[in-house]
């Protein structure tokens, strides 16, 4: 039996969460879908809370650690790619704030290897009938994102990740990764793209930002 549903941002975050958890152990640190005990950022490896956001704090929607690459993705999500543009400035600030949280070792909670992870900014959107995201829309979004990151005194790597969720005509959800980078970060970007391809089962899109500059 197939069930019809309306796509919302939370389904997108949930789909990426289950895809990451199925492929990568102890990978999901936080989702902004739930309240309760999940409202805190937790390290699933140690089953400990590593950060309690204040009620007034802006939050990321999905935070994932790719342990084998030493990378943490901090993601803002929307059901429609068009809605992300308005949130880029806020998300840049969230990334900056959380970078300092993740760089601190917490004994028994968050070790030196984890705290040495590279923070990579990420955006998540949903795509389906009536929710189209064209290649131009996606690349435009990431050029704009890079610009906002630079304006926010971001000092992280020149890599950004896109997490797309696709709803098909059969009401089935699948995922696809995008990796945008500048030349000096090509190797790391390539590793991330390959890992996302493994997680999703779909080949990731790999885009050198210098090509358009």
């Amino acid at each position: 039996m197939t069930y019809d549903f309306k796509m919302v941002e939370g389904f997108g975050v949930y789909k990426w969460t289950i895809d990451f958890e199925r492929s990568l152990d102890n990978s999901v640190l936080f989702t902004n879908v739930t309240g309760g005990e999940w409202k805190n950022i937790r390290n699933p490896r140690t089953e400990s809370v590593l950060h309690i956001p204040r009620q007034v704090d802006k939050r990321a929607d999905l935070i994932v650690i790719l342990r084998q690459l030493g990378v943490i993705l901090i993601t803002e999500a929307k059901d429609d790619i068009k809605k992300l543009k308005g949130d880029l400035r806020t998300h840049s600030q969230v990334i900056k704030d959380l970078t300092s949280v993740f760089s601190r070792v917490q004994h028994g909670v968050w070790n030196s290897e984890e705290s040495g992870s590279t923070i990579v900014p990420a955006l998540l959107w949903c795509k389906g009938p009536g929710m189209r995201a064209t290649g131009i829309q996606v690349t435009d979004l990431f050029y704009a994102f890079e610009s906002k990151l630079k304006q926010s005194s971001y000092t992280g790597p020149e890599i950004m990740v896109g997490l797309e969720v696709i709803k098909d005509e059969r009401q089935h959800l699948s995922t696809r990764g995008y990796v945008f980078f500048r030349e000096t970060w090509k190797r790391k970007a390539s590793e991330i793209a390959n890992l996302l391809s493994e997680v999703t089962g779909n080949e990731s899109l790999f885009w050198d930002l210098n090509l358009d500059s």
Partner: protein
Amino acid sequence: MHTHKQTHRLQVWGDNPFESQYAIDDLVSSAEESGWQVYSDFAQGFIPVAKLENDSMIVEIEGFGYYRQWKHLARDLDTILGDGKVDQVFIYPDTGKIDFAIEDSSATMTGNQFQQRLERIAGFAIGGVPTAYLVPGFAVKAADGGIRSPNIWAEITALQLMAATKLPHLVFYFGSRENPDDKRAGQGGRALSAYRWARLLDHIGLPNNLVELVSSQIKVMLKQIAQRKQILFDVFPEWDDSLLEHYSMMYAKLCLGHDVDVDGLPFNWSKVPKSQYPAIGEKEVVNIQLPLAQAMGRDILDCKAYFPIAGKSVGRPSSFKAMKDNLTKQIQASRAAREYLDRSYSVDEANQLLREGGTPAGNVSPTVMEKGIIVYERFRDFRKSLEASIGWARFSPGLQRFDHRPALVFVAGNVVQQFLRDPFAGMLASYAISFGAWDPRQETVVILYCPWQSAMVAHTMKKNGIEPRKSKTTAAWLRFTDLTIFNDAVIEGGFR
């Protein structure tokens, strides 16, 4: 030899997909512990599904988060969700039976936050659905690092709901003093898992310990009340700690479908003797001298009514400017609908609030009475005070029919544009039920007194009049209130 296995289908609906997956994982875990074979997967790439199989049965489970995003959401459930969304709902789709609903709260509960979710639990209960409420028995308050335990309104509400609906409504506690906030600590998390599994076994006709689980959890709830009632209440109806076993047996029998003499159950507020009314001085009753507040104050001093709760009910004061702005908005909203209301919003009373509500810090406190709940032995006394102090309202002569009943006045003294915003709707539900609105022994008349709010906070203008807004808070208001006194209108409704 190959035998045909009976197949049952279960749907787990959740406030989000994580909730439904969590419930399914929990059932899978219980099934594994009981020696069943289990398979888990995702349908359509993201719908959590599981198959539980033993020698004679197969149970196929599917999970759906975000109730209203699905086209096949059952109409019955859609209707009940109008009272607020609980975290998990268990439905057998082949019969359409909504088996039970769980509200799972991990928030650190202080004061009335514990009551915040009770209107949605009451909504399911009145819809004929058993409920369970999982709360932290011990939780760390981030603001000060102290450990907090919840108050007992949820337990009293749940037990009164059992008496009213003859269905189980249970409260479970997780965490311990040593391990606060830990779902694995304390008995509640494990007990709720066992209960979830026992309900499934019971539905499919397999041996289970459902009766024992219900009975023992009721005992846990009664113990919680016994231990904490003196913290919350100055007045408490007849109760005997040595009878906890008896009470729990009575409630268990009641909610499992047996006849019980309800006169023997606790929480009969209409039988509190006047000798137990707390002694109270004149200055300890009314903060802002509005006519109805003064009349109720006199009734308390004359022992016609009493404050049952121990603590004060003081809301957070607002700055003078914010209060003035909020009052101005009330006046404007009232003015726009003047022809449909009993009177214009009283500017004199608004000025009285700004004058008499002043705090030493220069803010304004809208708290009219010292405590927000007043119990009348008889509605008659309240009615007389109301009619004498509010000359501008139109009362129907039929009100006298309820004179013999007890009455509860809930004073919502806040000045806001959003009617009964959190946690007020839940507080209203829990007070109404706890003080016997649905208890056949009491049939308490529930009065909501909003001295600073225009009736327009709860209504929208239509072409030929006004009508209640459509929201979960107005749903709670309409369900639980018999009489509402706004600044500019008195509205009768309910009177079951």
